[in-house]
């Protein structure tokens, strides 16, 4: 995962430079680097990603034309529409090649929608610049990836961390005649259930934010981490510890430099990726992609905790914990051979986390104003 991590880090640096010096937003912080990694891993991801963005963009345009939906409603609509393309295509691919990039769909499927939504918010000139800069960024990262994956690097770094791009399942490794043996990702669930869980997770996260104004640690993170935990219990510890470290470091950086927003998010993801690399080198055995995603989700999670005002942080964390437990339980109920079972300690901790999360929700609900029915359309009733 060294090469994949390097590509993500370079992509993050590119997005920071692009937004700081050229006012180009690259359709979202992680879209360019993660797309590059996906494409290097499986070449067919490129047309899928382009098609997914196009479908999501067309959906958003249609909704803008026919409805007055705005903001995050449009974003979610774009994500759902954009996810259908890669998910459907990867279902097909996985039927042909069961060891292929099935799990890529879980994270990759939301990126087309995110990109399309960000493009739809820009004017034509800015959008053109953004699309061109995104494509240039992806092309450059693909070139870097192609050069870095070769028999020499494969033998030098292939086994230091779990392999992704130099691994035996990677398309670029095949093209460059490199095939480092690596962990095989055996999903415990049909991937469509995982994707459904991911979309449900987005719905739950957004619903909680809409009703109580509390941001959880990530839009899609909780079902994903639950999914990983189902097979690799170490994923949860990695995620929790990673969030704590990223949050602490980002707080120090923000305090020292006043940096905020996309730059801080990029930095958070970079820290998360480096932490994941470290765990990959010396920590528990986890597949490369799982670690890479955990690094990404950890970075986003640490940043999200940082962006929540201090008075709401406890609620954000405990509710996130409870939502994670619900997804873990849900996935466990339909999983074929989960690594985590309903042991007494798991049930006790899970129950405690659920109770704490529910208690926060009850407190938030009680503090909501009782009657706002009179605020109709800005006119007092």
């Amino acid at each position: 995962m060294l090469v994949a991590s390097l590509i993500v880090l370079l992509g993050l640096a590119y997005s920071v430079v692009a937004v700081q010096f050229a006012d180009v937003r690259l359709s979202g912080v992680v879209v360019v680097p993660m797309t590059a990694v996906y494409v290097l891993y499986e070449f067919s991801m490129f047309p899928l990603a382009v098609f997914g963005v196009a479908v999501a963009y067309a959906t958003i345009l249609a909704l803008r034309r026919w409805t007055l939906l705005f903001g995050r409603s449009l974003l979610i609509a774009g994500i759902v529409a954009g996810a259908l393309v890669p998910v459907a295509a990867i279902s097909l691919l996985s039927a042909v090649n069961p060891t292929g990039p099935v799990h890529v769909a879980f994270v990759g499927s939301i990126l087309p929608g995110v990109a399309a939504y960000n493009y739809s918010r820009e004017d034509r000139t800015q959008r053109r610049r953004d699309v061109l800069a995104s494509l240039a960024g992806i092309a450059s990262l693909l070139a870097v990836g192609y050069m870095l994956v070769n028999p020499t690097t494969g033998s030098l770094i292939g086994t230091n961390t779990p392999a992704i791009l130099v691994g035996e399942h990677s398309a670029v490794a095949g093209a460059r005649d490199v095939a480092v043996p690596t962990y095989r990702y055996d999903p415990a669930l049909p991937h469509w259930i995982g994707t459904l869980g991911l979309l449900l997770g987005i719905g739950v996260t957004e619903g909680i934010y809409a009703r109580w104004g509390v941001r959880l640690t990530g839009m899609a993170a909780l079902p994903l981490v639950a999914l990983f935990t189902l097979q690799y219990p170490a994923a949860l510890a990695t995620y929790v510890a990673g969030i704590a470290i990223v949050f602490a470091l980002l707080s120090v950086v923000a305090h020292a430099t006043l940096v905020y927003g996309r730059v801080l998010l990029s930095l958070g993801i970079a820290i998360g990726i480096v932490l994941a690399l470290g765990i990959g080198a010396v920590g528990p055995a986890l597949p490369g992609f799982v670690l890479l995603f955990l690094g990404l989700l950890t970075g986003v999670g640490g940043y999200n905790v940082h962006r929540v005002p201090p008075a709401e942080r406890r609620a954000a964390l405990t509710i996130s914990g409870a939502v994670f437990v619900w997804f873990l339980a849900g996935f466990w109920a339909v999983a074929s051979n989960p690594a985590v079972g309903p042991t007494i300690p798991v049930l006790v901790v899970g129950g405690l986390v659920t109770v704490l999360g529910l208690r926060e929700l009850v407190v938030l609900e009680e503090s909501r104003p009782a009657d706002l029915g009179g605020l109709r359309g800005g006119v007092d009733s």
Partner: protein
Amino acid sequence: MSRLVETATRRLRSLLGRGSRHRDRLEDVEITIVVSGVRGKSSATRYLYEAFERRGYDVLAKITGNHPKCLRDGEQHPIDREGSVTLYENERELREHGTPEVLILENQAISDYTNWVFNRYFADPDVVLFTNVRQDHRDTLGRDRTAIAQALARSVPEGTRVISGEQDERIRSVLSGELNRRNCPLTHVSLPDSRESIPGAEVVYAVDALIHRVEGEPIGGRVLEGYLEEMDVEWTQLPQGRVFNAASVNDVESTEAIRRSLARQNAPVIEPVVYLRRDRRARSDAFVSYLDALAEDGAIERAHVVGENTDPFARKADFPVVENEPDADADRVLDEALEGGRPVVLMGNTVAGFMRDVETAIEERVAARQQIEHGPAAGDVGSDDAGPDPIDLDDIDASTAGGGSARDEKDSSQTTSDDVDRRQDGDRPGGERGIAKRPRPAGPTFDDTDD
């Protein structure tokens, strides 16, 4: 190469120390006031600047919006903006202008996160003034007024004094609940009955309350009256009827405040002309709900919409809508709106070619009317001297009643009257956090100037 490394190292070192240097500068400021809320922030910032400067303080005020500038020593200093607007300009402006005694910053943030970042890292306010809570930036700040109130309140640092001009009791309760959890003493400013009909009066009275609390004496007098006059509205009389351009206020609550005020001038039913922008979808959504409510109350019978994406607006509306393209002829649209005999209110968005054309059309018609009535040397533009006597509009306006009979500052139920006295008993010499009352400097006082 070595020069490049040297430059990079220097920049990194500068970046790493930026936070502590900025905090040092903020520490040196005697009082930092952040003007937050939705509508009237720039006006409130200017009023505060004028009030403190009149009393001899060294004041730096930063106003954002379409014409961002800093005010210092009676001079305006435009803020250069290239590319995206970021919060970093607050650090830069304070660094460039030097530390004042009183720093007044208009909060330029439009999301819950950036509001919090602004207060936490860039301003560290002693006092926050909320002008009001209205539906604007709904896509980033919150879908409704409750969510917006929540987002604004949650952005206030623990223990900071807040003075709020919001008048709606339900929104006040949201603010009180959120700020109470942060141990933020909160003062709700109420309007006298006689001033409730002036749109934006809450901004003036909130400023007055803040000055009173910090300085010990309110603005009062003719200056206060002058500010209120600035806020007051009246119809513009055209040969074909009456018109008012309320498009610049953007949000539905402010538009409604203006409509109510105008309704008292013999206009129970109006003809709205709404300009829609493609990139302001949340606003379009708010206006369709608003006009639905007005139609339900009988305050409108139909609406004219101009601009981009009028179809979904017309589809969602429960009232008849006359649609027009963005490049519609302004004179034609105005004539069509006026032909029913009802006074016309322009609303929605103001930054558009059509709206500029309408402004021009109105000015030309006003001039033509004056020429007809008084000859070339006509009187004031916009005066409504020919307007009919006001009528009682209780049928559509009953809900505006309420509020104190005299101007009062009502502390929220969560705060106690001790909050007021803590100013003298707080940890810092002379008062509570950030409201350290300093000896008034020599120089012209407020009363001197006013009288």
